[in-house]
């Protein structure tokens, strides 16, 4: 292989890697949410167009402030992600960020993230905090910037094009040794929020940590999520979105579709591989091919997703 070829393939690999880390697009299609890869949206506009106007784009785990070897340029990969969203033929009405906006909850990290988000053509962004955004006891830095929608509670709801969106916070009230927690107050609020809504209303629930148990030894789950699910089960179309684990894992249970998004910053290991859920550091070309495989098998063939493949549960 010549140097030129090597360079080209490396560029392509990096491009794929960037797409691979770029988030997930959801298109509303007859009340069914179809995850498609942003590479597909950007590279095959006809294919994306067939899915209709996108309702929203989920971005997750931007980790602004991270500067380790797994990705020394998280600002750059977020910008690439935003450019892909901006390049879509039909702009989504909303952006949903499922947390870990920053890496260390520092004011300068939040400020930089907000500055980078201004590049988005879609200006309406809804967020929930991750545990990396709330390392200060009072969550002051996050709420100062993103707390208005929830009156500094972290949970809130809104409607868009007939879809009811519910944003939840499950990164506070950690019990030592335990999983994420919603808490009684928030669960009571959800019950009141959903009461009286028609079962035919499509529901989108989003939080940072998975609202289903993916791998408890690493805390990849929410301890009291069952109480939430019992409130959601009567609805005909429920989509539950999370970030946190920096990789796509999906399952379908009745009318409920669960989906975790990739990160725009760095990958994490598959559940249980290694000492813990830290940044996954591998040579760039290995990283690209690994993410590429994930892209192909999970994302490029959405119609083939039977979603029985929850190998990690």
């Amino acid at each position, binding site marked *: 292989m010549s140097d030129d070829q090597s360079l080209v393939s490396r560029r392509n690999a990096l491009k794929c890697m960037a797409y691979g880390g770029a988030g997930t697009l959801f298109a509303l299609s007859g009340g069914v949410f179809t995850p498609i890869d942003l590479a597909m949206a950007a590279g095959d506009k006809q294919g994306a167009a067939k899915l209709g106007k996108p309702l929203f784009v989920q971005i997750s785990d931007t980790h602004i402030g991270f500067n380790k070897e797994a990705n020394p340029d998280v600002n750059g990969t977020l910008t690439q992600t935003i450019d892909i969203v901006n390049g879509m033929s039909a702009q989504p009405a909303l952006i949903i960020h499922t947390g870990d906006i920053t890496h260390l909850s520092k004011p300068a990290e939040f400020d930089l993230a907000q500055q980078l988000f201004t590049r988005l053509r879609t200006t309406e962004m809804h967020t929930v905090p991750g545990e990396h955004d709330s390392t200060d006891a009072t969550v002051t830095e996050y709420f100062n910037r993103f707390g208005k929608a929830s009156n500094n509670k972290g949970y809130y709801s809104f409607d868009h094009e007939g879809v009811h969106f519910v944003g939840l916070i499950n990164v506070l009230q950690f019990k*030592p040794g335990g999983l994420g927690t919603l808490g009684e107050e928030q669960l009571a609020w959800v019950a009141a929020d959903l009461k009286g809504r028609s079962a035919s209303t499509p529901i989108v629930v989003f939080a940072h940590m998975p609202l289903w148990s993916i791998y408890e030894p690493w805390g990849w789950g929410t301890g009291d999520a069952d109480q939430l699910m019992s409130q959601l089960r009567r609805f005909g179309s429920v989509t539950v979105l999370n970030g946190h684990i920096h990789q796509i894992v999906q399952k379908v249970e009745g009318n409920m579709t669960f989906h975790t998004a990739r990160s725009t910053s760095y990958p994490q290991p598959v559940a249980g591989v290694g000492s813990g859920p830290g940044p996954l550091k591998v040579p760039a070309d290995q990283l690209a091919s690994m993410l590429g495989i994930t892209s192909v098998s999970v994302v490029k063939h959405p119609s083939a997703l039977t979603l029985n493949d929850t190998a990690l549960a």
Partner: protein
Amino acid sequence: MIKLTRLWLAALSIVMLGGLGASISLAAETPDPTKIVVKDFMFMPTSLTVKAGSTVTWVNMDEEPHTVVSNTQMFRSGALDTKETFSFKFNEPGTYHFTCSIHPRMVGTIVVQ
């Protein structure tokens, strides 16, 4: 002289560890008796016994940030990035449990005598 110092520290640590019960194994290197290393998503040692008035220092050696948060809100670090430290002085005898608020599976205990 160096050898003597190490021997002395080793002897001291054996004496200290002797009072801690079976949960702690002797490390190959002489540990700093007031330091907790955060590595591989664990507090090491998991339980540390110090005398009243001691200042305990946690140092994060992971590439992932961690926090040190008292179960009773007595102390709380911010997010510790790689190689950052947090210290707290324990004046009163007692047993103090702490966790990492980012990874609550990580737990540890300070016993102040």
